């Protein structure tokens, strides 16, 4: 059900959504020109959490920058650090032991689930349902427990090293992960029954916030936003990195282009991530987690390197322009939500404010990642 026909009046007023607003999940500001409940024009104002990671990347050595990547997107931090280590390994030609690669995939997928779980709760909270957040965070805590036991932190992991990992996983972790998988499967079914089937929920999302495939292309939207528009784009499949080519998983694609499609994509993705985790646990090879030969000082040769990974929010890219020293000459972060958010201004024109905010929730924003 889309909104009723909107007859424009001449009188508009400006509404500032943010920087402090419950719907923006952080410090994002959208200057909306409103005609009653309708948005005539929206302009996003960024930069309220701009911390200049890119300059830090140039001023510090490559290992020193590693923790920054997890502050970039605190929900799916593992995926972002993964991009950085992959980029450096590509630039400095460091071999990674197979066991380390498998554990990396395992961790990234666990983190993807925890990120999507948090998004799920926050999204339903945007729509006014508060309880699913609690359920989702409780399930998320179980994943965080697993990861904390290995990595040592709950949110901002700095677990990957150039060439390998900081810490090996033990049998306790593997057994605990195997125990958590059925629990999460059960929870996902419960969410389906509790939220996805809810008539109010569906009415609020079906047909709301259409983002077509062409619009995705023009704005460079990736991740679940693109997959909700019928594009089967996933860097893990399109441009396999690490050991993703070894795993059997599907890309969930929905062709409805609306907020519900984006919701469904993420819910299905959690199931696929569970599949990857199961396979990674089965296939986990024995061996070292750090390479035998590794340069003491990371100094990639002169050149320009790009590495894209699929994070929970879409295609994240790191461009490193190296001049052969221990600092990067240019350290560019291509964040997925930056592109995803840039289409919001156009997409929300003519929508009612509550639908626009529902759409904003379906984009899965993490503001520090947009502002960097």
């Amino acid at each position, binding site marked *: 059900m889309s909104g009723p026909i909107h007859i424009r009046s001449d009188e508009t007023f400006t509404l500032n959504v943010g920087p*402090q607003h419950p719907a923006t999940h952080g*410090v994002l500001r959208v200057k909306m020109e409103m005609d009653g409940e309708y948005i005539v024009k929206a302009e996003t104002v960024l930069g309220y959490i701009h*911390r200049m990671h890119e300059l830090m990347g140039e001023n510090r050595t490559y290992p020193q920058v590693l*923790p920054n990547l997890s502050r970039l997107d605190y929900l799916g931090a593992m995926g972002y650090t993964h991009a950085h280590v992959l980029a450096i390994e590509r630039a400095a030609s460091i071999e990674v032991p197979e066991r380390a690669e498998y554990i990396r995939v395992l961790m990234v997928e666990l983190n993807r689930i925890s990120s999507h779980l948090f998004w799920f709760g926050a999204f339903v909270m945007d729509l006014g349902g508060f309880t699913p957040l609690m359920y989702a965070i409780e399930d998320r805590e179980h994943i965080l427990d697993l990861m904390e036991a290995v990595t040592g932190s709950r949110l901002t992991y700095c677990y990957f090293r150039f060439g390998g990992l900081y810490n090996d996983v033990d049998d306790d972790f593997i057994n605990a992960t195997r125990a958590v998988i059925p629990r999460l499967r059960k929870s996902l079914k419960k969410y389906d029954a509790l939220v996805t089937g809810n008539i109010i929920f569906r009415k609020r999302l079906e047909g709301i916030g259409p983002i077509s495939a062409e619009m995705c292309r023009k704005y460079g939207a990736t991740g679940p936003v693109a997959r909700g528009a019928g594009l089967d784009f996933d860097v893990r499949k399109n441009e396999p990195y690490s050991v993703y080519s070894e795993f059997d998983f599907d890309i969930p694609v929905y062709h409805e282009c609306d907020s519900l499609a984006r919701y469904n994509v993420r819910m299905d993705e959690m199931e696929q991530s569970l599949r990857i985790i199961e396979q990674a646990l089965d296939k986990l090879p024995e061996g070292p987690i750090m390479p035998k030969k590794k340069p003491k000082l990371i100094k990639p040769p002169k050149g320009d390197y790009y590495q894209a990974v699929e994070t929970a929010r879409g295609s994240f890219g790191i461009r490193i322009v190296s001049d052969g020293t221990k600092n990067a000459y240019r350290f560019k972060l291509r964040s997925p939500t930056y592109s995803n958010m840039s289409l919001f201004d156009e997409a929300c024109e003519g929508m009612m404010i509550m639908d626009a905010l529902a759409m904003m929730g379906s984009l899965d924003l993490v503001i520090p990642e947009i502002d960097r």
Partner: protein
Amino acid sequence: MGTQNVPSPLEEIPSSVVQFAAADKLINIGRVNSFWPLTFGIACCAIEMMATGCARFDMSRFGAEVFRPSPRQADLMIVAGTVTKKMMPGIKVLYDQMPEPKWVMALGNCAISGGPFAFEGQYSIVLGADEFLPVDVYIPGCPPRPEALLQGILDLENKVSGWNRWKNPEKA
């Protein structure tokens, strides 16, 4: 936790014939049992703040789970994340909009001192929330664990009212 022993303003009131000490104590204990924080997350620490409000850690046990989106109804501002120069005036306005009595918590290293982002060449951030806000409790961590936030709330309760929920096991 980094509480400072700043004398509360109530102690500076000159004594009079009528003593309100008992009433003050009661009022303060009432206040500390219902800290309503402002729904105001800036960065990573906000996620831990939400985790603290949610099922496992549950801030509501201490009556502090009523996150109010409007500063008019909030008592406690938890500065959870890096304060940028662009955001600073906004935070100042939010603080000014909160009615007295109000308290500020600096959650996480960024809000304490700029944390990892205070580097050479940084032009964008404010080095800690205490540059422009009177911070009552500092909670270190990057991000702090939910238990740390709970302890911070208990410390703030103690600071405001001098009342302890539990006996300090270390002192006994």
